């Protein structure tokens, strides 16, 4: 890592740093000189609070010793707004991050990109849909941009990773440092994406995920997407912040319709009511991107056809998730027969259950 990049990393890592402050610091000229000026207690750059400037001085020495080292240890590169390696999609953005930390294949963001976001508390069906969508878009050569959060995000990434090696690599925009795995159970996929895709963060390595960082992350996620797809979301969820950021930038937002009774689809159904285009499969997204859909690989449903009783139960589940009791009520079958049929459908991959509720899975 050269001195210029190291200085950028240290400037971004200063305590109480913000995009606005960092932008002012970088406007002040060569980052190496600016850093030196902070370290020796020089005159504050115009527009910066002198007390903040003075408070930075004592931490420069430690940051110089640690931040570049962390970047190198995790193979993290630094890109400055307008510089080499900075994603072109962000250059013209009015709220673009002054400095970006990237880990992995920096060229991934130069492909066609679709943002996939959604709730962390997703239904089984929603998660299955996100996975299939991520998979099919990646196969079609479209890069899946998401936040690597629990629920929809991680499923979209997992789907994109499952695509063949010639598929587009996934891009994860994260709130914590590129080397700080959050949530911890995503350890494996985090490193898989660093390996064959790209992890992008505004925060320097080692930054813990704090609540204020997530809305900032969402703006980068929205800005990096050509089209934003919301798979499942509550009426007031983090995904809605991303939707608003996309709306500010006139990026088209698409939503996956859900059952009216499903709390996890409140937000997406509201988006549809507001005039967002619906997504029922990868084709809808590809059309929105203006890509030729005729060349996309058609998915063949390889699941064994269900029995007549299974088909009847499946028809009930397709309209909404049900408990065994609900299915008994709708079909009139005996409870134990329903349970047995559900067991078979589950083994064949038609349905999934969580906490006593059964959902039909997409093909």
């Amino acid at each position: 890592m050269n001195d210029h990049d190291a200085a950028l990393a240290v400037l971004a890592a200063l305590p109480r740093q913000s995009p606005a402050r960092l932008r002012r610091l970088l406007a002040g000229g060569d980052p190496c000189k600016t850093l030196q000026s902070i370290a020796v207690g020089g005159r504050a750059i115009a527009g910066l609070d002198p007390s903040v400037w003075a408070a930075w001085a004592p931490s420069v020495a430690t940051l110089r010793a640690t931040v570049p080292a962390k970047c190198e240890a995790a193979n993290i590169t630094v890109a400055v707004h307008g510089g080499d390696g900075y994603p072109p999609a962000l250059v013209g953005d009015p709220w673009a991050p002054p400095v970006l930390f990237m880990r992995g294949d920096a060229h991934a963001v130069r492909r066609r990109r679709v943002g996939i976001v959604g709730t962390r508390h997703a239904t089984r069906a929603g998660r299955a849909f996100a996975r299939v969508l991520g998979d099919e878009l990646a196969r079609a050569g479209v890069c899946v941009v998401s936040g690597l959060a629990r629920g929809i995000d991680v499923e979209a990434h997992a789907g994109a990773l499952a695509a063949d090696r010639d598929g587009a690599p996934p891009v994860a925009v994260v709130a914590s440092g590129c080397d700080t795995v959050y949530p911890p159970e995503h350890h494996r996929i985090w490193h898989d994406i660093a390996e064959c895709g790209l992890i992008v963060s505004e925060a320097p390595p080692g930054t813990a995920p704090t609540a204020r960082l997530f809305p900032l992350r969402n703006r980068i996620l929205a800005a990096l997407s050509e089209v934003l797809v919301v798979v499942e979301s509550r009426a007031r969820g983090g995904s809605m912040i991303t939707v608003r950021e996309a709306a500010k930038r006139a990026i088209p937002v698409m939503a996956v319709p859900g059952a009216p009774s499903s709390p996890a689809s409140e937000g997406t159904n509201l988006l549809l009511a507001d005039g967002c285009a619906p997504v029922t499969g990868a084709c809808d997204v590809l059309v929105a991107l203006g890509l030729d859909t005729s060349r996309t690989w058609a998915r063949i449903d390889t699941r064994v056809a269900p029995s007549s009783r299974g088909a009847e139960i499946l028809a009930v589940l397709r309209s909404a998730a049900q408990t065994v009791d609900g299915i008994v009520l709708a079909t009139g079958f005996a409870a134990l027969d329903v349970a047995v049929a559900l067991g078979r459908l589950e083994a064949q991959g038609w349905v999934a259950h969580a906490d006593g509720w059964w959902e039909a899975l997409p093909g």
Partner: protein
Amino acid sequence: MTIATTRTARNDPVPSMRRTGDRFVVVAAHITSEYPTPRPRKVRMYAAVSSSTLVGITGRPITVEVHVGQGLPGFTVVGQPDEGCREARDRVRAAMLSSGLEWPNRRVTVNVATGERRTDKGGGASLDLAIAVGLLVSTETIEARQIENLAFLAELGLDGSLRAVRGAAPLAAAITDKEVVVAPASAGAASLGANVVVRAVSCLAELVAVLRGGHRWPDHRAPERCAAGDRCADLADVRGQQFARAALEVAAAGAHHMVMVGPPGAGKSMLASRLPGILPPLDDAAAFECAMVRSAAGEDVEGLARTAPYRAPHHSVSLAGMVGGGGGRVHPGEVSLASHGVLFLDEMGEFAPSVLDALRQPLEEGVVRVSRSGIAVEMPARFLLVAATNPCPCGRSEPGACRCTPSARQRYLRRFSGPLLDRFDVRVVLGRTAGEHLTSLEAGESSATVADRVQRAREIARGRQGTPNGAVPAWMIDDVAPLDAGALARMRVLLDSGSLSGRGFHRVRRVARTVADLAGHEGPLGVEHVETAVALRADFMPGLDPR
């Protein structure tokens, strides 16, 4: 200060016992008026009186020896008395004086040694009456031959009345060759034991009058052998929850332990409390044992209840409360009280881990052993364990509604994993009852109908292997639950795909046997039985414990 105290003491001596006694004679005049106070004739030194003490839930006959001799007036209890027995002195003295009987103003020694086994702490308040009678015999108020054929089991009130004792049923049952004198309140429980002649007496003066001759034993109502009103809530009240009802029936028919996972309001406790109603009625031995346990735990026992007991301890229950024990003497715990019936643990995750761990030995052996220094008490604990829990801390189960993080869910459910979870053969996940079911006027199947099917399935199992299917040992499983070719193939698929563990395989076969028994199917198990059993073994914590 010291001098002043001494002088006061000398000037104002402690009132003599006789004076105190006279005062009490006046107070308790209503008791004494009916029965004239006898005067002691000459001094006899020694008396031996039969009684019994409680060890766990079994009575053990003992002899209370009383010696009244020369020496400084005093009262000593020897032979490892417990707290209740040491207090007996004050109660016995007050009762005798209240009854107008003279307190021997001499040196009194009481021995409560329990014969060859002297290790356990003897006594308790139940020896009060025996001590009083011993004193009366020693002072020749009563003739020794009058009590040769009697045993005494009662606590004394300060007014001379006889009070009920904890564990009257097992205490009386321990005495086989004598008539048993108890308080009227204990008479019902005491007469449960076979071949026990019970004499109920209301107060000490009455007893003295009888034993001195001239008065007949007072009458007491003999209780019914079968208690009335031992009915429990009916399964017909439960609306909806068809699947859980079916699971409950299988659990009852095979004596399989069961866990229910569902949101608050799903009807978990309602279902569990209906379980005794569909279990087969208790036979004589089981009903007797249940009565002994309940009596030993201090409950009022009037007759033999035929309905299986149902215990639902709160999750704050202590270790001693659950398995038995307690300060001083060993009380039966919830596991013993639930013996031959149902032990329901609502909010199982909230129970102390040590309490849940302690259930393993009773589940394994059907008895619980509480060990103290020098004594091990064994009590019955053959119960059907039914547990209930929320699926996660927030308890919202609809898809997408739960906001708990995966780690919070894991922490919540991890308490169930491990050896205790292995015991649950039937695992059901309940959703909230559909509104359509709740408002429906159609009553569910009644307990009686289900109980008939359960009884039939139990008989088939008993005819085949002598035990319910849930208790079939591992070596017997191949004979009891053979699989036909189709079932074997299905099992192979489940095992190979990892959706069933090797351990689960054996447990599932027991439940499949019960499913077949309920359907009246004999011979090797078919695909449908195995699949039903697998459906009844829900995988409610994916990733934590494979089913």
